């Protein structure tokens, strides 16, 4: 599932990610465009037991969230 949270202010990216996590999605891609949003989403994901990987391209961050079985 892809979540585009670019341009949304705090805490929208976190809220959107949390909603997706609550639906028990195992693989998520979250797009954000500020360091702060990226840190917040990453912190949330890790607190919920997800592994995170971050790609940065053209000023945007892609955070890939995966959860093992």
């Amino acid at each position, binding site marked *: 599932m892809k979540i585009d949270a670019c341009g949304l*202010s705090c805490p929208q990216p976190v809220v*959107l990610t949390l909603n997706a996590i609550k639906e028990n999605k195992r693989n998520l891609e979250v797009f954000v465009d500020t360091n702060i949003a990226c840190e917040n989403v990453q912190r949330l994901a890790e607190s919920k037991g997800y592994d995170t990987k971050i790609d940065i391209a053209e000023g945007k961050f892609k955070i890939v969230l995966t959860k093992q079985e």
Partner: protein
Amino acid sequence: MDNIVLFLTVVYKCADKIKFIFRKEILVLAAFLQKFGNPPNMGVCVACFERDIAGALGLHRASVVQYIRPEIIGFVLGSLVAAFIFKEFKARTGSAPLVRFILGMFAMIGALAFLGCPWRAFLRLAGGDLNAIIGIAGLASGIAVGDQFLKYGYNLGRSRNSYYSSGLIMPAIMAGLLLLLVFAPKFGANGAIFLSEKGSGSMHAPLIISLSAGLIIGFIAQRVRFCTMGSIRDVMLVRDFHLMRGVIALFLSAFLINLMLGQVNFGIAAQPIAHSDYLWNFLGMVLAGLAFVLAGGCPGRQLILSGEGDTDAAIFVLGMITGAAFAHNFGLAAKPDAVIDGVLKVGGVSSYGMTAVIIGILACLIIGFTMREKI
């Protein structure tokens, strides 16, 4: 003086042990600013200081609260420097500016009914003012209501990247204010700049100390994303204590420093620049808390964001300054408790102020209910 240094070292070591490096400086510096001349229990108060700036420019004429506070200038410029160094400066715009302006106005009206922003609420508590507990409870309640809107899809829309120079407008305004303060020109016999000769506006630490403290706080707050409102919001919304730990550390260090400097005086009535009308302390902060959540940050955080190039946050700041002008011109701001000839005169909010707070809460509720995306 040696004792002070020794005590500071101990506080720092303790704070470091519990890994709160950096986060404690804001209130610690605030407690010292107070020692150097800032008003009692008001080492740093974003709402009060923006109100003083509005007064200095003549946007309101309450003669006791007029001063161009270098701390505010420092927060924005300190954040700008940090954002430049760490490559986080990004000009952005376009997320419902008018709504943010209105939220800023009402946030200020709420904060002035309580007499302080969240930073000052914690500082007041650290100075022994127990009314602050009521204020913080109100703040948390307002945030709790705002959180519900967030859960059900409230948002003000996306911002987009903008021209680099547009992000520099707010820092430029702050630089302009600094020049006005340094050169203190007089625009006509009865014209601006107005600087209080008595009252809390006349109480200030020396310019260089205030400005340096502001720059340091702005720099650090940009790095650690410090936000009092966010700390409460994140605990409620996602059980994230990351920001809250910072706020607790700040509060404890300010309390210790205040104890050391003999600035703690527990009580409810006649606390410095505070009133003991519980209901309106509470409701004022409900309004402020709600407006902060809907706008995405406490007043301090909005200043830091404006330094990073967020022009929507800058609009919120200008809304707050305008709200302060309304608050004093329309008699909405609370009057502090006063002791006159040994008799306590309880302050509080006028009926105009009460009406404004209620209107503000209603306006915020309407904004929260109607500006939701279906999710």
